[in-house]
C-alpha cells in the first residue's frame, strides 16, 4: 500500500512543483485524522496542492475564503424559513465536505474561527437544535498569511491546539521556480487521476497504526513534551496533551511515509517542529531576543539525550 502513496505524490507533482513538506504534512494529517495549519506568503500553491490532493484521492473539496464580515452560519449553514410550506429548512454550509480549505483563517474574527472548533474536534456540526455528522475522512487545511499583519485576528490558543501541525512553507528553489515558469509558459495542463479509493485510505490508516514504536522512543516523546512545560526563560507556556498525542501519531505516519516499519528518534525530532511550533508560547524575553519557536524547540531537543 505504501507504493500508492508514491502514486499520490506523482499525481500532485503534475500540478505542484516542490513543496514536499506541505504535501507530506497533508498526507500525514489525512491518514491520522489531523488538521493542518499552513503559514506562508501568497502564491506558494497552497490551494492548488489541496485541490490536487482531493482529486488524487477522489475526495470532496470545498474552499472558504475567510473575510472580516464572514459569519459562522456562512460556514456551518443555517435554518432558513421556507415560505412555501411555512417551515424552517436546514441549509448546509461548505463545511459539509471531506477536504476543507479555510483560506486566510486569521482574516475573520474569533467567533467565526470558533465555529470550526466543534467540527474539527467532534467531527460534527450543530445547526439550530440538530447535530450532523461530517463525512469521513474530514480534514481542515487552514492557511494564514504572516505578512498581512494589518486587519488580522490572531487565532486563540484553543483553536490552534486543534491543529495537528503547523507547516511553514517557503519559496521554491531556483530549479523549482524555473520549472514552474516553463510549465506556465508552455500552458501545460495535466489531468490528475484518482489513485486510491476510500477503502485504501482506511487500510493505510491501519498500517500506520501498526508501525512499531519502542518504549524508549515513546518515553522520548514524553520527555520532549514535559521539557516544554518546565521553567524556561524563553517559554511562557508549554504544549498540552494534544501535542503528545499528535506527535505520537505524526511520528508513526512520518516513519510510514519514509517506508519504515518502526519509529526512530529522527522521526520524532522531525515531527516535533510542526507539532510544537503553534502550541508553544514564547516569553517576552524570547521575543526580545528575536528567538522563534523553532529555535526554542531546537534548544529543547539539544538538551534531551536521544535514545
Amino acid at each position, binding site marked *: 500500500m505504501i507504493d500508492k502513496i508514491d502514486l499520490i505524490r506523482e499525481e500532485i507533482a503534475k500540478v505542484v512543483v516542490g513543496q514536499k513538506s506541505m504535501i507530506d504534512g497533508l498526507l500525514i494529517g489525512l491518514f491520522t485524522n489531523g488538521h493542518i495549519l499552513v503559514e506562508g506568503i501568497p502564491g506558494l500553491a497552497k490551494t492548488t496542492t489541496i485541490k490536487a490532493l482531493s482529486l488524487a484521492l477522489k475526495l470532496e473539496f470545498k474552499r472558504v475564503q475567510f473575510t472580516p464580515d464572514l459569519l459562522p452560519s456562512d460556514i456551518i449553514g443555517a435554518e432558513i424559513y421556507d415560505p412555501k410550506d411555512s417551515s424552517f429548512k436546514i441549509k448546509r454550509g461548505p463545511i459539509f465536505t471531506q477536504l476543507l480549505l479555510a483560506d486566510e483563517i486569521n482574516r475573520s474574527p474569533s467567533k467565526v474561527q470558533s465555529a470550526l472548533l466543534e467540527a474539527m474536534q467532534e467531527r460534527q456540526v450543530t445547526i439550530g437544535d440538530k447535530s450532523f455528522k461530517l463525512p469521513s475522512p474530514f480534514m481542515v487545511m487552514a492557511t494564514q498569511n504572516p505578512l498581512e499583519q494589518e486587519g488580522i485576528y490572531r487565532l486563540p490558543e484553543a483553536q490552534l491546539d486543534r491543529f495537528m501541525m503547523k507547516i511553514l512553507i517557503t519559496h521554491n528553489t531556483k530549479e523549482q521556480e524555473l520549472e514552474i515558469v516553463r510549465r506556465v509558459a508552455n500552458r501545460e495542463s495535466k489531468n490528475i487521476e484518482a489513485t486510491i479509493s476510500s477503502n485504501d485510505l482506511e487500510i493505510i490508516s491501519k498500517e500506520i497504526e501498526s508501525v512499531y514504536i519502542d518504549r524508549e522512543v515513546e518515553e522520548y516523546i514524553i520527555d520532549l513534551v514535559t521539557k516544554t512545560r518546565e521553567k524556561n526563560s524563553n517559554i511562557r507556556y508549554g504544549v498540552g496533551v494534544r501535542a503528545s498525542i499528535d506527535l505520537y501519531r505524526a511520528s508513526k505516519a512520518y516513519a510510514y511515509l519514509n517506508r519504515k516499519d518502526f519509529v526512530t528518534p529522527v522521526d520524532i525530532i522531525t515531527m516535533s517542529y510542526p507539532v510544537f511550533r503553534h502550541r508553544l508560547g514564547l516569553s517576552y524575553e524570547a521575543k526580545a531576543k528575536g528567538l522563534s519557536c523553532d529555535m526554542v524547540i531546537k534548544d529543547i*531537543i539539544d538538551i534531551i539525550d*536521544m535514545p
Partner: protein
Amino acid sequence: MVILVILSILSIFLNGEDIEYSFHLNRKSPYRYEPITLDVNISQLDHSRVMFFKFTPKESSDYEYHQIDFKEDDEYHNLKQRYRYIIYPLKRGRVDIRFNMIKTVTTDESVAYAISGDRDNIKSLVKTDIKIDLEPLLLDVKPLPEDTSLVGDFRLKYNIDKNSTKAYEPIYLHIEIVGDGYLKPFNIIPQNREEYLLFTQKPKLKKGSISWDYAISSKRDFTIPKVNIKAFNPKSKESYYLTIPPTHIRVKPIDKETLLDKKDSPKSAKDEIDLSKIGWILSYIAIFIAGFLTPRDILKRRFTKRDKTIRDEIRDINSKKELLKYLLSKDRDRYEDIISTLESAIYRDNKIVLKEIKEMIYDR
C-alpha cells in the same frame, strides 16, 4: 429657667390685620457683652393673597447679632416664619435694636407665570413690596465691673514646649481660652520687648474658643510676662481672673567657634587639580572605544568562526548517535542523506565507519 421665662418680654403687633408678628427677648437689662436671645414670629393672616416676607435686624455699632435659627412653613396663602438671633450689646446704657422688614404681596397667577420660564427666558415676578415700619426694641444695658476684658464663663489653657533653649532658637507657646461668652480677637502676650523677639500669628477664633500660637526667641535669658485677664460671668454676676504665671526661660549662649567654617567648602578650584575628573574622562573614553570595538569584534568572529567550528565540532564527536543529533540540529536538509545513513546504522545495525561519514561531511 423660670427667671428667664419671667424676664421674657412678649410683644405682639398687628399690621392692618393681614399679618401678625411678635418679638420675644429673654432679657431686657443685660450686662454689656452678655448674650441675649431674640425670637421673632411672623405670620400671614390674610389667606386670600400670596405673601413673602424679608426680615432682618439693622446693622449697628451698638450691638452685634448672629442668626442661629430660621424656620418657614412654606405654604402659599399661609406663610409663617420664625427667626432666632443672639444679640450682644456693645455699649452700656440705652440700646435700640432696629429692624428692616418688607412684605411682598402677589397672586397665584403671577407666581405661576414667573416659574414658567427657563434658564434662557427668565420671567420676573409681578409683585408689590410694602415696607413695614417696626418699632425698635429697647435694651437697658448694665455696665461691667472695671477692667473687665472678657464676659462669659471661660477656662484658660496654655503650653510651653520647653523652659530652656539655645540662643536664637525659638520656644513655642500655645494659649487657648475655651467657654461660653463673647469672644473677639485680641493680643494676649505683650508685643516685642528688648529681652525677646515675639513671632505672632493671627488668633484663631472658633465657636466657643480662641487660641494663640507664638514663637519666642532671644540671645539671652528672658521671662514670658504674667498674663492676667479679668473676666466677668453675668450668670453668677461675679468677676474672676484667667492667669498665666510668669515663666523664666534659660537661654544657652552660642559657642562662636562652632559657627565658623574652618575649611573652604567647596574647595577652591585654584588650589589643586581634581584627579577624579581625569578618571571620569578616561573611563568615558574607554567605554567609547569598547562600544566601538565590541560590535566589530562580534561580527568578525561570527563570520570567520562558522565553517571552522563545524569542522572542529565534528572532529570532537565520538559516536554515531552524537553525530546524528548534531546534524539534525545543524542543517537537516543539507545533510539529509547522511542523516538517513546514520539512522540506518544506529537503529538497523547497518555497518558504517564513523571516520568515513565525517569525511563525507567535510567534503560538503
